[in-house]
């Protein structure tokens, strides 16, 4: 049976991990490559890098990072942030990333994902959306862009249903950063309505939260940042907890 995936996410700024990570065995907590290797050792199923600067200047740094990671890590990894054109996506995929996630640019340029899928296949493209509760929308969720700051007036679920991407990264921005748990009802709504896998993001604070989003929330994968960064729980801890609760995870 297909295992549920646990995906640690690292926010990158100028080639460094932004949030300080406290692992005793890591000499340089800000080095994304060391951290990615540590997560791999702990049993991460994938790794996700988010370039939060996403400026033209930071692009070369990110490409270097992708090249280094791909030489050292033989599990899938995704890169997001600032991918605005098919050429941006190509550069990151050629540097060795398995997938690129495209967010705001997919809303601004409605053909970007279609073109990227045609060139690289749906498996290489993740649609990343910020969804915020809004009862005036049919689905109850409005699509936001630019890091969740700007409302689009579009129904988030409706937008996701039309995508050609191979996967959806659903960031519930009401829950993001709260560590009070994922938006379970919202994740379930998206996961049941879509035919592509859904990665839940935003709000993870404990192994119980991850269990809830993978079971009640019907997510195919759970992405989390700070729960792992601060060393409170390792990925192995979370997987052991999930296994104990009869969730299929990779050993």
């Amino acid at each position, binding site marked *: 049976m297909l295992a549920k995936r646990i995906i640690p996410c690292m926010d990158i700024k100028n080639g460094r991990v932004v949030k300080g990570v406290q692992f005793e065995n890591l000499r340089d907590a800000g080095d994304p490559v060391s951290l990615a290797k540590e997560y791999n050792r702990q049993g991460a199923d994938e790794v996700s890098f988010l370039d939060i600067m996403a400026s033209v200047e930071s692009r070369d740094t990110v490409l270097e990072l992708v090249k280094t990671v791909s030489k050292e890590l033989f*599990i899938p990894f995704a890169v997001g942030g600032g991918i605005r054109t098919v050429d941006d996506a190509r550069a990151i995929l050629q540097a*060795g990333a*398995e997938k690129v996630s495209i967010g705001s640019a997919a809303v601004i340029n409605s053909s970007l994902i279609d073109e990227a899928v045609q060139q690289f*296949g749906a*498996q290489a493209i993740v649609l990343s959306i910020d969804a915020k509760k809004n009862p005036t929308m049919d689905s109850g969720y409005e699509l936001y862009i630019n890091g969740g700051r700007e409302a689009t007036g579009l129904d988030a679920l409706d937008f996701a249903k039309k995508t050609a991407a191979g996967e959806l990264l659903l960031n519930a921005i009401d829950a993001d950063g709260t560590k009070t748990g994922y938006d379970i009802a919202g994740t379930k709504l998206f996961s049941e309505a879509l035919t592509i896998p859904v990665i839940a993001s935003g709000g993870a604070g404990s192994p119980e939260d991850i269990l809830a989003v993978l079971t009640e929330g019907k997510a195919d994968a759970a992405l989390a940042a700070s729960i792992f960064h601060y060393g409170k729980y390792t990925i192995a801890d979370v997987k052991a907890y999930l296994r104990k609760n009869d969730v299929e995870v990779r050993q």
Partner: protein
Amino acid sequence: MITVIETGNVGSVVRAFEALGVQCTVTRDPTVVQNAERLVLPGVGIFGDLMEQIAPLKEALIEFITAGRPFLGICVGLQVLFEESDESPGVAGLCICKGNVRKFTKGKVPQIGWNTLTTKDVHLDNKSYVYFVNSYYVEPKEDITVATTDYNGEFVSAIRKDNVFAVQFHPEKSGGVGLRILERWLEC
């Protein structure tokens, strides 16, 4: 020395072999393909697109395989060994194996993630997790299946026919388990 057929993004396959200390030649030259010691056909994307890309190599590929040297097919590189695919109706595959390629009809499509192998094959570990990304799977019409996997029903995840070994999953993205599979293939 390993020869890898250039098909889209071959980088991760090359890097995995390099991590095992083996150099790769990446090529689309029919002469190089035909004279390779060991040949790898990776493949991501669409059946018809891959057939179009390797069309100039078709004869060289078939000659290489007929000569009996080790061949490894990965993902769509497995699927094109068959006769045809639901993904690209009317496009003939390499017809090295009898059977067709079907689309998953249950569950989320594509299947993305880690799933287990049920196998007795010497190159694979029974119950080990490997990484899959696929919407289609092969349905052999001859006895060549060496591993199956459950995705809302059993499908064929690896085949072996004489010197041809081909897998639906991505050994180059399957961590230590995947690297061991590649290492064993290098030893055969």
